[in-house]
């Protein structure tokens, strides 16, 4: 520790402020990063972490303040300069071109554009060397579109190392990894840090921060509110610092499972491109229960969600709702069978950005409840929007506001209201709190728990294992389109679920059945 305190400062941020319109994303933020140090940047969604890193990397220009790398001030708004100075960034959403090969993705931008020859041989040799040195195994000739999520992340890290990065910024790198893959990533990072690399690690997962970081900075509403050496702090303290007070998630009291409302027996669906379909899945949703679906993203969650939403038909197997076999399945049928759907992407699937709140409020029910003989009843529709706004605490100027102007939390509350107002028997909640701040998270969770108590069957899909384990009565794990048996609350540890997420256990389960 003391040795690191004296080490060279590789990155210095001074008084960074960045505004987007009325929102202040970063407010006078300053910190230093030393050689061989791992800093964790901790904060809720929307605290300004990603904006800050994009400023370091030159993708945004700060309104005020400066970024120094190895004592040299970086020219603002120039990712090229940041890369040349030795800053590498692994984005939360991978920045890879799917139909290019691994080596092409890595080499992109590293050779002068005026050069008449793409030097592939030297590039591949260098990649092979790096892969060996940092244990990042990946086939340089493979098309990136065919790689798994874990492999893609290795390519992202190789991209940074190939450009001689000495400071590595990782934005929520474990969001898409299994616990085991995360461990492998941490091993790689420790290796790299041992060789003199410095790391900024952005996360909101406290146990990871405690595991990998030397020091942690807490960002709240754009301000740097605390700085702690890892040895001097605890998970509880960091959690409180992050949200600015104590947090109490909704309490889920045990209650007996009601009748089965939805039953999938041996259901398969066709995959879409690289995304797997479902493979002979058995799943039963009971009234008065929250069923959690854990898994690494891209393992068939979308397939299951699309099936229940009505977007996709089963290609094999039995699909029953309230005891009646499903036929000629569509989103409209799903709605009429009492399924309420909270989609994964509220901006692009759940709402129409340039429609106002009234139009979005009746998007699913206009034909049934707000029209006669093809004529819309806008007065009733507006009244419905107003009642949703009041009942579900949607903060907005009024029902005529375009929904794109609402914050994510308020947008989600409107969708939630739209779903709950129809008193659905079955609720599909796909990533219902992704990207929301803690207040909105608790609100959404509370409403889902309430619906459960009233006897709805809730299917909660999330990549956040903590969320799943806190809320679910029964947990299934999905991996490559296969579904694990259901595990009753309290019978499994996170590590055990992680094994299932990584694909272990399915073969035995198949044998046993």
């Amino acid at each position, binding site marked *: 520790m003391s040795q690191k305190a004296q080490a060279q400062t590789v990155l210095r941020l001074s008084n960074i402020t960045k505004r987007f319109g009325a929102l202040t994303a970063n407010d006078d933020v300053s910190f230093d990063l030393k050689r061989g140090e791992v800093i964790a940047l901790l904060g809720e969604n929307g605290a300004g972490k990603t904006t800050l890193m994009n400023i370091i990397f030159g993708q945004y220009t700060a309104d005020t303040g400066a970024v120094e790398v190895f004592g040299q001030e970086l020219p603002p708004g120039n990712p090229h300069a940041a890369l040349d100075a030795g800053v590498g960034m692994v984005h939360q959403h991978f920045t*890879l*071109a799917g139909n290019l090969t691994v080596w092409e993705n890595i*080499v*992109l931008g*590293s050779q002068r554009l005026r*050069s008449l020859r793409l030097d592939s041989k030297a590039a591949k040799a260098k990649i092979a060397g790096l892969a060996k040195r940092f244990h990042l195994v990946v086939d340089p000739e493979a098309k990136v579109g065919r790689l798994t999520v874990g492999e893609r992340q290795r390519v992202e890290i190789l991209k940074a190392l190939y450009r001689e990065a000495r400071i590595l910024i990782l934005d929520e790198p474990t969001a898409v990894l299994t616990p085991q893959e995360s461990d492998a990533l941490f091993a790689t990072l420790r290796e790299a840090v041992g060789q003199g690399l410095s790391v900024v690690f952005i996360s909101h997962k406290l146990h990871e921060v405690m595991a990998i970081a030397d020091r942690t900075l807490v960002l709240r509403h754009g301000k740097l509110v605390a700085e702690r050496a890892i040895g001097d702090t605890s998970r509880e303290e960091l959690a409180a610092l992050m949200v600015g007070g104590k947090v109490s998630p909704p309490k889920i009291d045990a209650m007996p499972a009601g009748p089965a409302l939805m039953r999938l027996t041996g259901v398969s669906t066709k995959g879409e491109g690289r995304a797997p379909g479902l493979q002979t899945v058995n799943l039963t949703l009971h009234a008065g229960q929250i069923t959690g679906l854990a898994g690494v993203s891209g393992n068939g969650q979308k397939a299951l969600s699309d099936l229940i939403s009505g977007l996709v038909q089963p290609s094999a197997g039995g699909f029953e709702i309230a005891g009646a076999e499903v036929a000629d399945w569509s989103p409209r049928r799903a709605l009429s069978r009492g399924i309420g759907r909270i989609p994964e992407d509220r901006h692009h699937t759940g709402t129409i950005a340039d429609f106002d709140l009234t139009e979005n409020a009746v998007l699913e029910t206009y034909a049934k409840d707000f029209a006669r003989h093809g004529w819309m009843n806008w007065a009733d529709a507006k009244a419905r929007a107003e009642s949703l706004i009041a009942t579900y605490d949607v903060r907005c100027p009024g029902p005529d506001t375009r929904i794109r102007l609402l914050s994510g939390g308020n947008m989600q509350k409107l969708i939630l209201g739209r779903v709950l107002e129809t008193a659905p028997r079955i609720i599909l909640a796909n990533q219902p709190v992704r990207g929301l701040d803690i207040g909105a998270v608790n609100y959404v969770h509370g409403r889902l728990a309430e619906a459960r108590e009233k006897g709805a069957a809730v299917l909660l899909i999330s990549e956040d294992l903590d969320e799943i384990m806190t809320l679910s009565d029964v947990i299934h794990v999905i991996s490559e389109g296969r579904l694990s048996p259901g595990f009753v609350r309290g019978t499994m540890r996170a590590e055990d679920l992680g094994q299932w997420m990584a694909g272990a256990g399915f073969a035995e389960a198949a044998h046993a059945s």
Partner: protein
Amino acid sequence: MDFFDILTSAAFWAAAIRIASPLIFATLGELICERAGVLNLGIEGIMVAGAFAGWIAVYMGLPLWGGVAVAFLTGMGFGLLHGTLSVPFGLSQHVVGIGLTLLATSLTFYTYRVVLPEVSSPPKIEAFQPFEIPLLSDIPLLGPALFSQTPLTYAAFIMAALVAFVLYRTPLGLAVRAAGESPSAVAAQGLSVTAIRMGAVIVGSGFMAVGGAFLTLSAFDSFFFDMVNGRGWICIALVVFGAWKPGKAVLGAILFAAFDALQIRLQQTTIGAVVPYQLFLMMPYLLSILALVLMSRRAEVPAALMVPFNKGER
């Protein structure tokens, strides 16, 4: 003259290669734009403008290659306009392209009337003449078909090879392909998506204009208002047919041109006496639609085609 005789005559294939040449230029131009992620529907108008600009430059006294250069620059100018509206501003590429075609076409016709107010039929120029490549042109069948063409035809094939080389063998080409596939990957590697896409649209539009100029400087020796006649739209179909690959696009253009040459010859046969000539003239357009339908399920469309990139998107 029966079917087989037509298909084995050197004159037929020479005509096919000649008809293919302007299509090759313009298809390459469109391919460059689309590979970078921009659909350029200005192609039809840019070809009209290029046909006129090249021709009028030569009519005013420039050498033929000077005319080609003027056409290229004219195309680049329209490309700059298209790129500015569709890339940094991210406006609908459909609307911008159609608007550009209307603009380029009407500007051309206007300029024609201003420059040549009194003429009833357009003046002729001294167009490119066939150049027989020594030795190669002596090969039976292939020689007269491939190696007795005008220099601008040779240029079309050289350009195709050059475009393929740049796209697949240089850092610039890699950046262009990546821009059409995943602009965020390009930005994350410190390159400017805007610059790459703008550059591709500008250069691609230059190629389209040269395709137009081929009509006035090589295929014919004068400018007519309706001489491009939908060739631009056909080239868009050819890009799809060629699966966004330069080599396949050139083959597609030749195949297409062969059909066109065939229908011209069939009109003069006994079939032509019974079937209305309009049906023959429809063939290129019908074939283009057929090509689009056939390739619809197979082609690997650049993933970010028609997707504007706004790095501040939040």
